[in-house]
């Protein structure tokens, strides 16, 4: 029920590796780390959700603010390696339409 977040800087790209569960308790921690990155001008912020096995609307809220922030700073937010369950939350709410999402490889073992 915890969340760890670490940032790897690669030239014009910031990679945010998120591990754990994103809920009302852990979302503020994600927001604290993610939002400052999105304020940098002309950057790519890649959020790796490979090891996030749970996310609810509190996570959506964080990614919505991050997306808005990147638009203001001409940066780009990308969500990569989403697990099936996490992707589903974006799909149900229709947010997969406005977010740049690259899900995990489908058709593998679940």
């Amino acid at each position: 029920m915890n969340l760890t977040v670490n940032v790897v800087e690669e030239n014009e790209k910031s990679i945010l590796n998120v591990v754990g569960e994103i809920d009302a308790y852990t979302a503020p921690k994600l927001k604290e780390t993610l939002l400052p990155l999105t304020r940098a001008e002309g950057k790519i912020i890649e959020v790796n959700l490979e090891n996030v096995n749970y996310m609810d609307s509190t996570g959506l809220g964080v990614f919505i603010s991050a997306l808005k922030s990147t638009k203001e700073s001409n940066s780009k937010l990308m969500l990569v390696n989403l697990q099936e369950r996490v992707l589903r939350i974006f799909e149900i709410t229709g947010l997969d339409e406005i977010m740049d999402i690259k899900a995990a490889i489908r058709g593998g073992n679940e």
Partner: protein
Amino acid sequence: MERFDFVEVKVPAKAEYVGVVRLTMSGIANRMGFSYEDIEDLKVAVSEAITNAVNHAYHETEQGEITVGFGLYADRIEIMIADHGGSFNLIEVKNGIGPYKSNEPIETLREGGFGLFLIEALMDDVKINNSHGVIVLMTKYVSEKEVDVDDDQVSTTQ
């Protein structure tokens, strides 16, 4: 009257307890024979309702309690989340619940953004009562393809 087991959990109205109730939900749903997908749906729906209750409670008082009641029936689970902290009677509360109407004052629920929307999308039936605090009653049916309710093992054959 239809027979059911009832489990009640009471937690402080704080975000750190959302995960605790989610774990309880997972355990109960697993015991009832819900599929992996349905268990994940139930975990999200319960967390959304608790998150709403936590936000609601913070606006009302500094310290509140959230009461969660799980009604375990042969074919479904009924979950009640109440943010007034008091204990409640399943039958009594059910009688006081009508269909959700969009003109009801539910600003406090809506502030979670997509929370209520997700609850409605993931559960089979959702009712909200806000005459005494906010009570969410939601139901999910055990899918028929599940075979053995008492089977703790994850079946590898379909």
